[in-house]
């Protein structure tokens, strides 16, 4: 493979560089949105599993079991096609004509978010269970109310225990975001595929994709590890 030809192909001087950067930002944006939505689902899920009544807990168990038992691609199809199925019939019910649907970004955020939410449920639940009971008891003993205790003690402690698991879920979200390309959203996967098709140099493009994802997973992995070290600052023994 001719390297200078390759750099011309993916470079910014008449190459695909700009499109690739834009696609990379789209991958990041949709992944962050999905991870954030998943965090909301995961928080509710963990809360339901930890302190819900029988029915609420059952619903949360159903959610995590189902999501972990079916392919993510199906969930994306459900939101992509099912979303338009529901929205269109809703639209017709209100007298609107034509065809409605969710855009690719929304589909990706919701579908990948709901999937990652199931994993975040488990991570957060385990994180909560890892918090020593005594620390919560001490918070009760000094007269903290529920919200104060949540804010000052529980959330920081759970985050610290959940951070490594959250890092794994994030990596998973980043990789799963490729599936959103089936909706036509131009993120890295889609852009690479378009480039490969229109230049007839698929190998270079897919290798570029590989490198881009490797960059994203490596850098974000390092960021998560840094955060972890920071959150563990109090738990190094010896110093101080």
């Amino acid at each position, binding site marked *: 493979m001719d390297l200078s030809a390759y750099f011309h192909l993916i470079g910014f001087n008449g190459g695909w560089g700009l499109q690739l950067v834009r696609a990379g930002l789209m991958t990041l944006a949709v992944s962050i949105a999905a991870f954030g939505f998943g965090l909301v689902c995961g928080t509710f899920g963990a809360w339901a599993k930890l302190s819900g009544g029988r029915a609420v807990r059952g619903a949360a168990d159903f959610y995590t079991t189902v999501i972990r038992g079916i392919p993510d691609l199906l969930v994306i199809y459900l939101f992509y096609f099912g979303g338009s199925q529901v929205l269109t019939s809703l639209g017709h019910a209100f007298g609107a004509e034509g065809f409605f649907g969710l855009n690719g970004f929304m589909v990706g955020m919701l579908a990948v978010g709901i999937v990652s939410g199931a994993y975040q449920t488990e991570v957060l639940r385990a994180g909560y269970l890892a918090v*020593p009971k*005594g*620390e919560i*008891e*001490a*918070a*009760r*003993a*000094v*007269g*903290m*109310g*529920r919200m*104060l205790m949540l804010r*000052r*003690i529980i959330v*920081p*402690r759970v985050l*610290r225990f959940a951070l490594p698991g959250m890092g794994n879920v994030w990596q998973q979200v980043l990789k799963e975001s490729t599936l959103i390309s089936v909706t036509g959203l131009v993120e890295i996967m889609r852009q690479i595929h378009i480039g490969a098709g229109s230049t007839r140099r698929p190998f270079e493009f897919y290798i570029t994709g590989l490198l881009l994802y490797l960059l994203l997973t490596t850098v974000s992995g390092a960021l998560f590890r840094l955060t972890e070290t920071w*959150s563990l*600052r*109090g*738990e*190094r*023994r*010896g*110093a*101080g």
Partner: protein
Amino acid sequence: MTPTIALSGIHKRFGANEVLKGVSLEAREGEVISIIGASGSGKSTLLRCIPLLETPEAGSIAIGGETVRMRSKGGRAAPADAHQVNRLRASLGFVFQNFNLWAHMTVLQNVIEAPVHVQKRPRAEAIAEAEALLEKVGLAEKRDAYPAQLSGGQQQRTAIARALAMRPRALLFDEPTSALDPELVGEVLRVIRDLAAEGRTMLIVTHEMAFAADVSTRAIFLHDGQIEEQGPPARIFNAPTSDRTRAFIARHLNR
């Protein structure tokens, strides 16, 4: 004068296990009460009932003359007013066997947490007071250390400073030295002894008989969820009237 803490007719069960069978107890200001008894006799449960860390099924609790309002919730007793409970809890200092320091906060942050966020005192004032308290328990230079960086004795002294920072009416100790290596027990007992000398109101659950005999103004022997005998430590430890108390004391002093 109203007692600082007044318990009357406290009953507590865990499932079928009736742990407290009608305990009544008053702690007046300046009293240092040691609570002794065999393992499982209900000492911790009794102490934990005072700040409502356990909810008794029957009986009443009054702190500084204010009775905790209770109600029945689904057939079980529960505090009627969570705000009242939190306010009363903030007026007591509880020291746990396992310290229970908040691991994500430094020593100083542990000490000022409740004064600033629960009692809403000015931060600067809380810090100044916390520093004085850390000085007092001998941890001034550890203010920025995290709990994991401290020895057990240092952690427990931090926990005592944390309890004192609430300006509590009374201090409650649940076996404060049981989780410590033997060589660290002394430093914690010394701090508690100083607090007793200041005339603070304290309830101490302990297995350290010599310390209890020495520091307290009254000793209570709990047996099977009931107060078997109580009185001045000189009498309880030297001339108990109950056979059970005598057997217990003999077993523990010989160790």
